Structures are given as C-alpha cells and as structure tokens.
C-alpha cells in the first residue's frame, strides 16, 4: 500500500485546524489556560504579552465558542476575573496542536 505523500498529510492536517483557536493570540491564551485550572486575567495578559483590550476581545470570542469560561470575584475590595479553559477548549486545543505538529512534520 502506498503511503500518502507529505502534501497529502499537510492537506489533511490543515483541514483539522480550528479556525477559532488558530489566531496566535487566542492560541496562546487557550494554551496558557490549559496548563492551569484557573488563572487571573492580569496573569494571563502578562503571560501572553498583550494588552487588556486585546485579551478581552480574545476571551469574548473564546467564551462564545465555549472554549473558555470567566468567573468574576473579589480579592478584598478589588474586583478580579479568573479565566479557565473548558473541556471543549482543551479538546479543541489538543486537536489543533496535533494538526500543527503534523504540518510541522513532527
């Protein structure tokens, strides 16, 4: 049986890329959150090295897709927002990373 050539492998992998997660910012956010149970908004912003507004926009898209959830709370009197990746988000991330690895030839 003939093995598929690298172009065919890449083509199949590209079809498995998740449009929502594929943006570098959203990919970084989901990947960072997948390494935690929960993380505070400011910590995620600093880890991904983007602005508050950029992270807010990314989180809105990811929340709408069901990949990230946000919880509001307080530390003392200061309002805080904690973010976490949902199980759907973690699954989508794993599938997306697998597709990227296939494209990268790993």
């Amino acid at each position, binding site marked *: 049986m003939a093995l598929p050539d690298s172009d065919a492998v*890449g083509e199949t992998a*590209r079809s498995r*890329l998740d*449009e929502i997660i*594929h*943006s*570098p910012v959203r*990919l*970084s*956010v989901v*990947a*960072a*959150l*997948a*390494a*935690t*149970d*929960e*993380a*505070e908004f*400011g*910590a*995620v912003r*600093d*880890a*991904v090295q983007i602005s508050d507004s950029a992270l807010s926009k990314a989180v809105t898209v990811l929340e709408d897709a069901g990949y990230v959830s946000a919880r509001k709370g307080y*530390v*003392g009197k200061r309002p*805080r927002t904690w973010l976490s990746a949902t199980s759907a988000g973690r699954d989508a991330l794993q599938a997306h*990373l697998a597709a*990227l*690895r296939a*494209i*990268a*030839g*790993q």
Partner: protein
Amino acid sequence: MTMNPTPEQAQHLLTLTHGAADSLRAAGQNRHAQWLTGFATSTFMTYVGLSTTPDDAGGLVLLGAYMATVAFLSFALRRGAPVTKRGLSGRLVPAMSTWGVLYGITLFVGLEWFRESSLFWLVSAFVVTAPLAVGAWREGRA
C-alpha cells in the same frame, strides 16, 4: 494567521504555545507550594513545641498559635492566588486529608495517653508533617 500555515509557521505557533503555558505557570509564583511548605513547617514546630511543653496551658497556647499561623498563611498566600496549576485538587486533597487523619489521631492519642512523652511528640512531628511536605514537593514540581 493564514489557515494554510507553512511547516515553519506551524512550528512557530507550537513554540508560542509552550512559551505561553510556561509563562503563566511561572506567574503563579508557586503560591500553593509555598502555602503547603509554611503549613508543614508550622506543623512540625508545633509538635516539637508540644514535646517540650508538658502542661496543658502551654499546649493550648501552642495550638492557638498554630491555628493563627495557618490562618495567616492561608490569607496571605492562597487568597487571590493568580494562578492555580492544573490538577491542584489532585495534589492538595490527598495531602490535606492524610494530614487531617494523622493530626486527629496523634492529638487524641498524645493528649490522652502520651502527654508528657517527648518521644511521642517528636515522632509525631515527622509523621504529621510528612503528607504536607510531600504535597508541597509535588505542587512545586507540577
């Protein structure tokens, strides 16, 4: 980002994901590991103190100081922790539940039958501290 990344672009994205995950884990400053370490240290010191304090008044003062210390550590380190590493409950629950059982047993047995036995309290210091120390080590490595 194009939906048709080249192998180099795909590799760049993969590198990006690892960097973001590592940065966020580091941002947590290992607060929960620090909390468990402080908890273990105060537990050990309390039991060592009990080995040198045969009277009940001294024992009560020690246990009161222990509770105040743990409450302070919880307020300072756990409250508002910016990052909770993946799987924290899988490390914390076994540590705390084992500590709880050993703490209850050693206190009951010690206060009932071995109040003036320094050896009992010194051995208990290691036994009761062990699950917290193991928990701190596991959390630090996570």
